[in-house]
Structure formats: structure tokens, C-alpha cells
């Protein structure tokens, strides 16, 4: 692993929930502007990896760096600063169900920026337009379809213009066409803004489209890491099977 500061660096990270060891000695680095797809069977610690990175969970051992900051050593104020660099698309979008789509996006802008209401309107219209929800901003989350919720979740993750985007199964539960639209949005975000993206996914077709490199987890271990060709030649059978399109 490079000793230079990447956008995200995991070093010897361990995480257990009770007797269950979810991550065991995980180390990897993601470069700025790169898209890393995290693959693995269910329950192998993929989502936990993203939550550790967002400091929603704390590792038992090891260090996690976001650019220069070791988030395992930061207090709440420091963590808040680091989180400002990141956006998180949750598996079920995690929109606030008591707020309209517009208010969901306006909340972080009002609380964390000095923007005027006019500037907030402009920023929300822009990001909702980018995800194709320009006409739905007054809708409540319950009134949105699964695909719209994912796109709304992505809009909220992007509204603060993060340098790093974390997406937890952005295409789960969606049809191929809608999943492909989500992939397009991720690709556009990377191309236009140079955003570093970490995607947890089971959709290998989408992963091959958006991913520069792949990390494959199995039973808490990082069993393969690299470009798709490297994973296909991996000695680990689970890794080979997970990237196989057949």
C-alpha cells in the first residue's frame, strides 16, 4: 500500500459485534478521483466498512484516514469537519420521512452553510435537476418510488458538494434500467466533479461500469483488491466468482 495520503486509507482495521468478527485486519487505499467497488457476500462487512469511514461506527483496532485526518483519533468537532467532505447514500436512502424532498436537501444547507434562501433554492434545483427529480421537490419521501428515493438519497448526499461519495447498494431493489440510471449519475459525478466514490454493491454489471478498482470481502477478510483483471486472476475463488458476469 502506498505511504502517500490517499483520499481514503484503511490500515489494519478490525471490527467485531460481540463474538462476531466482521472485519479482520483490513487495509486498503483509495486514490482521489477513483471509484472503488466493494463486493462480497451478504454479512461480510461491506456496509460496516462504509459506516466506519463515516465514523458512524468505531473500529476496535487500526486507523482510518480521510485524506490527512485519522478519524479514529478525532473528537466530535473534528469528525464533523471530516464528514463535511463526504456524502453518504444509504441503502434505503434514509430520507427524513417528516420532511419534503426540498426540506430534506435544505436542512444541511441551512445548518452548515452561510447560503441565503435564494442560493439554497438554486443549489437544490441544480442537484435535483441532475438526478431527474426537479419536479418532485414538494413530495414527501413516502410518495416517492424506490428508484426516486435512491435518486433523492443521492441528491441529498451530493448537495453539500462532497469530495468523497459513499454509496451503500445504490442499485439494490431496482430494475436494470433504473439501476443503470443510478450508475450513470455516479459516472457523471466522477467525471464532472472528480469525486472519489466508494460503492458497496452486489450488481456486478454496474460495478464493472463504474468501478476503477474492486475490493472483495469474504468472512471479514479483504481477500482481493485491484482492477477487474487482477480480481479475475485472483487465487481466491469467491473473488473470481463475484466479479464473474456469468
Amino acid at each position: 500500500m502506498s505511504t502517500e495520503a490517499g483520499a481514503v486509507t484503511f490500515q489494519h482495521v478490525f471490527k467485531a459485534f460481540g463474538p462476531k468478527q466482521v472485519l479482520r485486519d483490513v487495509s486498503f487505499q483509495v486514490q482521489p478521483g477513483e471509484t472503488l467497488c466493494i463486493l462480497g457476500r451478504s454479512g461480510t462487512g461491506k456496509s460496516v466498512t462504509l459506516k466506519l469511514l463515516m465514523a458512524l461506527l468505531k473500529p476496535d483496532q487500526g486507523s482510518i484516514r480521510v485524506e490527512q485526518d485519522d478519524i479514529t483519533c478525532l473528537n466530535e468537532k473534528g469528525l464533523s469537519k471530516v464528514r463535511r467532505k463526504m456524502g453518504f447514500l444509504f441503502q434505503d436512502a434514509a430520507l427524513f420521512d417528516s420532511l419534503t424532498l426540498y426540506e430534506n436537501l435544505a436542512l444541511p444547507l441551512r445548518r452548515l452553510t452561510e447560503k441565503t434562501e435564494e442560493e439554497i433554492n438554486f443549489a437544490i434545483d441544480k442537484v435535483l435537476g441532475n438526478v431527474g427529480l426537479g419536479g418532485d421537490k414538494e413530495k414527501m419521501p413516502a410518495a416517492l418510488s424506490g428508484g426516486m428515493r435512491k435518486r433523492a438519497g443521492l441528491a441529498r448526499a451530493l448537495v453539500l458538494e462532497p469530495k468523497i461519495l459513499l454509496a451503500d447498494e445504490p442499485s439494490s431493489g431496482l430494475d436494470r434500467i433504473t439501476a443503470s440510471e443510478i450508475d450513470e449519475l455516479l459516472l457523471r459525478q466522477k467525471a464532472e466533479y472528480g469525486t472519489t466514490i466508494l460503492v458497496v454493491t452486489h450488481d456486478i454489471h454496474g460495478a464493472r461500469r463504474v468501478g476503477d478498482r474492486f475490493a472483495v470481502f469474504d468472512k471479514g477478510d479483504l481477500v482481493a483488491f485491484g482492477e477487474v483483471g487482477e480480481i479475475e486472476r485472483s487465487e481466491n475463488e469467491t473473488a473470481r466468482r463475484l466479479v464473474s458476469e456469468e
Partner: protein
Amino acid sequence: MTLHTRSTLVTFGAAAMIPTVQALAFFVEIGPLVAGLLMAGRVGSGIGAVLANMRATEQIDGIESLSIDSFKFLVVPRVVAAVVALPLLTLFMDFAGLLGGFLSEFTSSKISFALYIRRAFENLELANFVAPTAKTAVFGFIIGTVSAYFGYTTNRGSEGVGYAATSSVVVSSLLIILADVFLVKFIFFVFPETAL
């Protein structure tokens, strides 16, 4: 209350005391305690269930991921609202009880509203209802913190929503009754003239 006490007071020739008894009972104890227990049932279960649902659906993680302190954003306003709202609801409860007492007494004795109110308040001092009403702010604090605790800290998914709602009501109610005992003693200690 009036229906229960009327026959006894009439037997002892103390029917004129009915408004006073009614007002004292409501302002000193029944109003604050019943308002607290009702709010524990209605608002406590609501706070517990809403926060537990937000935890189960990752909405609280969503708030944290936006660099917003979820405790300050979700818990503090609810606790403050409970502390402020319960004394106001208690006053409403007291006066509603008094009005109900008047209607009950009016059907029996045709007492005028003005006379009922004058008799209700003639033996009531300010301290008789300020301190008992103010103590409900403590009840509000108990409801807010206990319910928020069960909702905010649950990690049992959707099953935790029901658990948080039930636990919020049960624990809040028990703590309110327990706190009431100590607060009554405390009020007697600070305002000895309020002892009946």
C-alpha cells in the same frame, strides 16, 4: 371527583365546600399527576416510537452523516418541548376539571358559575397551585429524557419501535409517580404554608 365527594360533604353539612375541595384536589395533585401520566402515554410513546423508527431506518445515521449533531437536533428540542408544554397542559387540565366539577355541581344544586368560582378560589393561595404546576416541568423532563433514551438508543430494528414506545410509557409513568412523592415533600419543605 365532585360526584364522589358530594354525598359525604352534604352529610356533614359541608356542601358549600365542594368547589374548594374540587379546586384544591385538581390544582394540588390530580391535575399535575394525571396530566403527567396522560402525556407519558401520548407523547412519551410518540417520542420513543418516532426516534426508534428513525434509528431503525437509518435516518439518525443520515443526520450524523450530514455533520449535524443528531442528539441536539432530535433529542434536545423534544425534551425542551416536554418541559415547557406539560405545565401549560396541566393548567388546561386543572381548569377543565374545575369546569367539569361546576357542571356536575350545577346539575345537583343549580349553583351559579360566579359563586362556584369564588368558592373554589377563596381558600386557594397562589403557592397552592404555582408549585404543583411548576413541578410538572420535572415530569416533562422525565418524559422527554426517558422516551428519547429508549428511542434514540434502540438497536433492535423495527422490533425496537414497539419496545421503545412501551418502555417509554411504563418507565416514564413509574418515574413520574416516584418523582411526585419526592416533589410533594420538597414543596412542603420549601413552602410549608401549602400543606393542607
